[in-house]
């Protein structure tokens, strides 16, 4: 996997009138994983969206080298389509990459329309979409929501694999998750 790096300098985030966090800095290089902890409403999702370039930071800057893949609460899979077809749309855009459907236990669901999937199954499908993108930088926003213990283990396995191959994983989650290296920051430490 190509060399990648994700650096943020002196980030601050404001939502409405509230300053959620400030002075946040991070520097992730190939193979690094980081968990972002924090109670609800402390700005975990906002941080992810800032790092992804989807939200402008109130202050500070982000530098990225390498493509990014994002997993959030929206699966970005067409509800009316069978799972295989919904995933095939992203495969056409992303080109041929590793297929994670088998690893995530999705093969038997290929013909099921996405809207009939359970919360956990949808999350697994979204994980397959994200992993199939082949991007070196992974941004995961609450990837464990709705997953059973087996699913949680799968996420940990995927992330460990990804980091072993030289990828970066940033996981925002209020739940405990085992990441390679075990690094974590708590947004409460940066609260304004």
């Amino acid at each position: 996997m190509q060399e990648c790096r994700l650096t943020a300098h002196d980030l601050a985030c404001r939502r409405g009138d509230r300053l959620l966090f400030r002075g946040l800095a991070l520097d992730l290089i190939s193979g690094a994983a980081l968990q972002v902890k924090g109670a609800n409403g402390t700005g975990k999702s906002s941080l992810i969206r800032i790092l992804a370039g989807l939200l402008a930071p109130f202050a500070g800057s982000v530098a990225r080298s390498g493509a990014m893949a994002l997993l959030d609460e929206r699966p970005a899979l067409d509800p009316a389509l069978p799972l295989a077809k919904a995933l095939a749309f992203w495969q056409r855009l992303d080109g041929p990459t590793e297929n994670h459907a088998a690893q995530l236990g999705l093969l038997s669901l290929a013909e099921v329309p996405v809207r009939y999937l359970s919360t956990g199954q949808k999350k697994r499908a979204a994980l397959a979409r994200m992993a199939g993108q082949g991007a070196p930088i992974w941004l995961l926003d609450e990837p464990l929501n709705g997953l059973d213990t087996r699913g949680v283990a799968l996420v940990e396995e995927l992330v460990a694999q990804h980091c072993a191959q030289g990828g970066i994983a940033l996981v925002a989650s209020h739940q405990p998750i085992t990441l390679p290296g075990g690094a974590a920051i708590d947004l409460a430490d940066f609260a304004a």
Partner: protein
Amino acid sequence: MSVFLSLLRRDLGLLLGGERRGATLLPILFFLAVAMLYPFAVGPDAPVLARTGGGVLWIAALLAAILPLDRLVEPDMELGLFDQLALRGISEELAMTARMVAHWLSFAPALLLAALPASALVGIDAATLRTVELGLLAGTPGLAALGVLVAALTAGLRGGAALGGLLVIPLAVPLLVFGAGSLATGGEAGLALTAACSLVLVAITPFAAGAAIRSGRG
């Protein structure tokens, strides 16, 4: 280009096929229903019908184009599709161009066909029908662009669909004036002006709708 085709294929599939097929037929049936009701409402006075029928077809076409507005942009915004595209370096402008083309393909060809039976229902002659068809051919790209533009602007707003319909109507007035106006004069000038309006709308929509999607992010 292959990215554009992938987007177009997906958009067309969603607008035309699968689960929502009924929703695609709806605007066409609505168009025919208006053409069928009109003679009942104004009475079987052939000269009146022939004189006003073309204009009624234009209004019916405009209203039919508004019907699919709520599923043009909003569902994909909720899915997070545009965020995922942005992460892959695919611009909102490209996505909106594909959406515009797909929207046109999903209603305009069927509308042009439906205008044939509709013309018989309102009793217009062959020459008028030709002007209506040419006018709709020139005007529907503008209607499609306007639909995507307004759908992108109102996506995420509460009651966005109803608001969108209301917003399209005044913005479509130039198309209607020139398009239906070409019927009265029978001239090519009206058709040319309709096409000009369409061109302007088609040209600005990808950028305006793309900007709307970006500013709608939070």
